[in-house]
């Protein structure tokens, strides 16, 4: 990736990031944003907004509320960009954590009933990519994650999906699945550990 950047005749501070690996690029953009660089944040938005919004929609389901919560999450990312610590994880992971927490807070504070009564038409939320190269990369990534997820036991995967995409607490997950208290907690953790190890993320 460095080699690619080196090929550029006159790397400007913005454009030199284009050739960097996404993780490096996001971290660098976050750092620029923490210094008040709105242009860097716009680039970051273009790179990650579909990931953040997609996750929030998956948890909240209602598109209008999801938009609002994604907006809140992005504002929080802008405000707290200086607190991102590269030693503790990737920039994207940090942003996803913020968006997930916001989404979960929203579904738990709102009347839970409204969410569960809303019919969610996944087919209308199809991914709309600007670039076919990006789409290809994204589907490769999705395929990689799907395969990793398939290595979990059904019990682990079920508990993890209810927790992560459903926004339920482990106690709620246990009662939804008719499990003894504490069992869902263990399944979620075991599932995440297996996912992490299969994806080759360091522990």
């Amino acid at each position, binding site marked *: 990736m460095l080699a690619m950047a080196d090929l550029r005749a006159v790397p400007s501070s913005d454009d030199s990031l284009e050739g960097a690996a996404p993780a490096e690029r996001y971290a660098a953009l976050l750092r620029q*944003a923490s*210094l*008040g660089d*709105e242009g860097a*944040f*716009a680039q970051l*938005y273009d790179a990650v*907004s*579909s*990931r953040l*919004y*997609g*996750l929030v*929609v998956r948890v909240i389901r209602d598109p209008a509320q999801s*938009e609002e919560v994604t*907006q809140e999450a*992005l*504002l929080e990312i*802008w*405000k*707290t960009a*200086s*607190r991102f610590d590269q030693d*503790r*994880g*990737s920039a*994207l*992971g940090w942003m*996803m*954590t913020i968006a*997930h927490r916001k989404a979960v807070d929203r579904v738990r504070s709102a009347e839970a009933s409204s969410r569960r009564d809303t019919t969610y038409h996944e087919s209308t939320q*199809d*991914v*709309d990519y600007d670039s076919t190269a990006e789409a290809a990369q*994204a589907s490769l990534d*999705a395929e990689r*994650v799907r395969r*990793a*997820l398939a290595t979990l036991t059904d019990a682990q995967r079920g508990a*993890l999906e209810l*927790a*992560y*995409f459903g*926004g339920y*607490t*482990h*106690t709620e997950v246990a009662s939804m699945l008719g499990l003894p208290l504490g069992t*869902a*907690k*263990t399944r*979620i*953790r*075991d599932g*995440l*550990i297996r*996912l*992490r190890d299969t994806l080759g*993320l*360091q*522990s």
Partner: protein
Amino acid sequence: MNDDIHTLSGAYAVDAVDDLERVRFEKHLSACSECVAEVDSLRAAAGQLGYLAEVTPPARLREQVLRDIAKVRPLPPQATAEASARIEITRQSLRETGRRPRRFPTWLAAAAAVIVIGSGATAVAVQHNNQVQTQTVAESVLADPNASRKTQAFPGGASAEVVASKSLGKAVLVTHGIANAPAGKVYQAWFQHGESFTSAGIMSSRADQTLLLDGDASTASAVGITVEPEGGSSSPTSAPLALITIA
């Protein structure tokens, strides 16, 4: 390491914990670097699940966000922010008391369980800083023999005491063994006047602290403590963890 709390790492990493568990686990995290590393790695794994959920947001979101950020100042790094929090603290133990916990309303009983047992330090140590004047006021309040003293005890040994001096018109909040507020949150103190609450200051993250409350204590009927977003709120956004009458 407490094995039971350790196994909460996965649920915590995906926000599948309730508020009480979150506070307890964050308290545990502050003392267990192994769990911190595990949570970080499990969050990274969970974040990858996002690849399965990508959806392009409506175009207007971009405009809204870019318009929003233009109006919001990015925060400085954490350490600086803490240093600049305008809190004047001395460290002091509570007097040894044999007080029994009172009966709480149900919301308070639930909230009180958040307060985790702290150290049993008994030494009185005044922390030196530049706020000499403020400390003097706090010390004067604490030394006033006519001051009213009310303690809210919590299960597990934590407590909050309000010492209010009529003659000085000031009150001091002394806490003991209070667990850290959840990440991104702070404890904020309030004076109650009738139905309204005015901010009396934001508490630091110390378990044991003495905080001189902002505002006139002589007209207030009670002091409340709530959990608020970092930076505090202009009015309480959650039910008080404690409401201590001083009138």
